[in-house]
């Protein structure tokens, strides 16, 4: 081979232009994700505004002892994700792989805690339709809160699961030396997605667990 293959695809003029196009594409996807979760947040806002007492009483049945540490776990995962992108920029293969793996493990830890929490919700009869029992007034709207709780956290958990799968794939690619400093943008894009999932939880935590005062 006489000519060196350029690092960027043929439709781009420079590697920098390709990186910008790649990240902009991810931001576009994230904007659609904002609206995807936004519809549910709209439902939530209207329902909470309409039935404040029922929502406060229902929220107090959730445990901050689950939601708080889980928020901390995701913030830790965002920190290691940011460090993974940095390691990739500097071309550190082992550091990038390790940091991506740690990020995925934090994500798995989040899901484990969430699983225990769902189990507690089930035991305490807070699962709409399947197993729901409410002693206080306005049981219908307390149930509505738990519908929103399960749909919002379930959808978020699905995003975390997808994130873990992608992180694992990229960690393997990194281990095999496929993510060079030139191609670090792969980790940057995964990072954008992962941080977005963290941000969704940053809003879900106070909206679901911290209504009124406890």
């Amino acid at each position: 081979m006489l000519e060196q293959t350029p690092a960027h695809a043929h439709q781009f003029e420079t590697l920098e232009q390709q990186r910008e196009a790649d990240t902009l594409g991810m931001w576009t996807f994230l904007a659609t994700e904002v609206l995807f979760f936004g519809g549910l947040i709209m439902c939530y806002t209207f329902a909470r505004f309409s039935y404040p007492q029922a929502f406060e009483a229902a929220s107090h049945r959730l445990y901050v002892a689950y939601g708080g540490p889980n928020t901390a776990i995701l913030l830790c995962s965002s920190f290691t994700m940011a460090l993974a992108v940095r390691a990739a920029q500097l071309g550190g293969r082992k550091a990038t792989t390790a940091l991506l793996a740690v990020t995925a493990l934090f994500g798995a830890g989040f899901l484990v805690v969430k699983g225990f929490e769902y189990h507690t919700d089930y035991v305490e009869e807070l699962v709409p339709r399947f197993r729901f029992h409410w002693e206080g007034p306005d049981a219908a709207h307390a149930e509505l809160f738990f519908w929103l709780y399960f749909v919002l956290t379930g959808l978020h958990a699905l995003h975390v699961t997808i994130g873990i799968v992608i992180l694992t794939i990229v960690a393997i690619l990194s281990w095999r030396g496929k993510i060079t400093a030139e191609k670090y943008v792969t980790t940057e894009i995964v990072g954008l997605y992962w941080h977005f999932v963290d941000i969704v939880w940053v809003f879900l935590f106070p909206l679901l667990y911290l209504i009124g005062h406890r």
Partner: protein
Amino acid sequence: MSNTVVPTKTYLAIFVALMALLAITVGVAYVDLGGLNLAVAMGIAIAKAALIVSFFMHLRYGRKLTWVFAGAGFFWLAIMLVLTMGDYATRS
């Protein structure tokens, strides 16, 4: 540009700030501020999101075009929330 290498200590400072904000938001939830509880909780959530978007997602190192794309989603979300709730809140 997006390929700026951010120092580790910057990331560490942001991480510490995020954990501190989490501790504050949990702590404040146990104090009765009346209607202000919601405002404080949302204010802290927005501050955390701003830190993550600016530093971890590198928006402050990015181009203005990225700002437009990032802002668009939140802008349309704001339209939906404000106009819908404006309607419900003013019905008699």
